[in-house]
């Protein structure tokens, strides 16, 4: 049963299926960046990065990097036709102003009311927030990619976040290694789960009630 979960690539693949053609998308640094690799054939989303680019493309070949052409994760990127540059006040105007169709972020914890904790575990070390607290506001959908449970087995979908918050009531959908869960009216609503996992088992790995409205789909992804 320990094998019965999606890899990060598979979670990213699943999230990519919900990105419409022509959607404007911001992918958080790290794991969420993988979503771009699984763009659905025939769709051309436009990717935004907080440091001031719309419509950037994948990393260049090693050695071809131009270090003035980077994304928010400080990785070298390329440009697609129709790209544009702008300063960071305009860039976060795009974010806060509701212009992105979807922002996809990582998570330490997501609460059933949509609260997100993803920037800091405790009070030790040097705190760093970047654009996380801005990105959780404004996008039409704020989705999260995450393992369903933490490495120590603790649930990451919880009644209330115990880690410092990134934003309040901001997450609309969670793609986990076991399920797809929407947040509606302060509740987790289960939309899809892995076929081999019982409802009871899934609930036991989740820190707050999973509600069912209508049918629960099968979370089905290719080998990746």
């Amino acid at each position, binding site marked *: 049963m320990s094998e019965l979960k999606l890899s990060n690539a598979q979670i990213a693949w699943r999230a990519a299926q919900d990105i419409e*053609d*022509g959607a*404007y998308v911001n992918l958080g640094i790290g794991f969420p960046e993988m979503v771009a690799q699984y763009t659905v054939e025939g769709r*051309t989303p*436009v990717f*935004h990065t907080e440091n001031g*680019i*719309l*419509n950037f493309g994948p990393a260049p070949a090693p050695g071809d990097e131009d270090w003035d052409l980077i994304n928010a994760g400080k990785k070298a990127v390329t*440009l*697609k*036709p*129709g*790209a*544009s*540059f*702008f300063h960071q*006040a*305009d860039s*976060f*105007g*795009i*974010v*806060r*102003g*509701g*212009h*992105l169709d979807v922002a996809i972020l990582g998570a330490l914890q997501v609460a059933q009311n949509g609260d997100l904790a993803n920037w800091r575990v405790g009070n030790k070390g040097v705190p760093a927030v970047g654009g996380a607290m801005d990105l959780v*506001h*404004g996008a039409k959908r704020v989705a999260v990619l995450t393992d369903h449970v933490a490495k120590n087995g603790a649930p990451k979908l919880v009644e209330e976040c115990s880690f410092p918050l990134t934003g309040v009531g901001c997450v609309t959908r969670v793609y986990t290694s076991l399920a797809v869960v929407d947040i509606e009216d302060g509740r987790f609503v289960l939309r899809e789960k892995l076929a081999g996992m019982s409802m009871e088992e899934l609930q036991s790995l989740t820190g707050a009630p999973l509600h069912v409205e209508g049918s629960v789909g099968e979370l089905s992804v290719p080998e990746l």
Partner: protein
Amino acid sequence: MDKRLPGLAEAVSGIKDGATVMIGGFGGSGNPIELVHALIDAGPKDLTVINNNAGNGKIGIAAMIDAGMVKKMICSFPKSSDPRAFTDRYMAGEIELELVPQGTLAERIRAGGAGIPAFYTPASYGTELAEGKPVAEFDGKHYVQERWLKADFALVKAELADTHGNLTYRMAGRNFSPLMAMAAETTIVQATKVLEPGGIDPEQVHTPGIFVNHIVEVAEPQQEEALIRAGAVYERA
């Protein structure tokens, strides 16, 4: 992704009675005359129109007012050359006016586009235009709180567009247009020339395509000031 529409009528067809419409332009520069005239042909009523001015002569916004389409103007200067259309209705109590200092108007529209619900400005503090607005002191100086301004639609005139909606403007025709493009739910652009993606240098884009929904090419756009000086009149076709 191709945001072009075949014609002006299609471009404005979604604008219904009661809508709030931002219209780019300052005085006679940068006005999307062809889009405005298409809107007059479509004929929605009870519109709230946001523009720096309130129409001049017998074309553009003035012709909208003459056609009885405008319930309210939000503007800074409803008294440019030949403002008869607005003046007549205003003096007759048939049109509402929200008068906003020009810089505040620009900043409120930017705030609407940038997700800033309110901000403080020194402009209008201590004047009748600040009446009823919250006031606050920062570092010993007084400021007025102003709210963001958003719209259902923006009508904007660009010089170049690409099919993704990236835009450049022509000279001082830029004025309010980049701000309005940000602040409207649906931004409709008339461009003198529409290029393929990549046709505009990414460093020279004035409005990124994310702010644009529909584009119509109007290859030889009219210029409001020139039309007014020629005594042009627009009436519904």
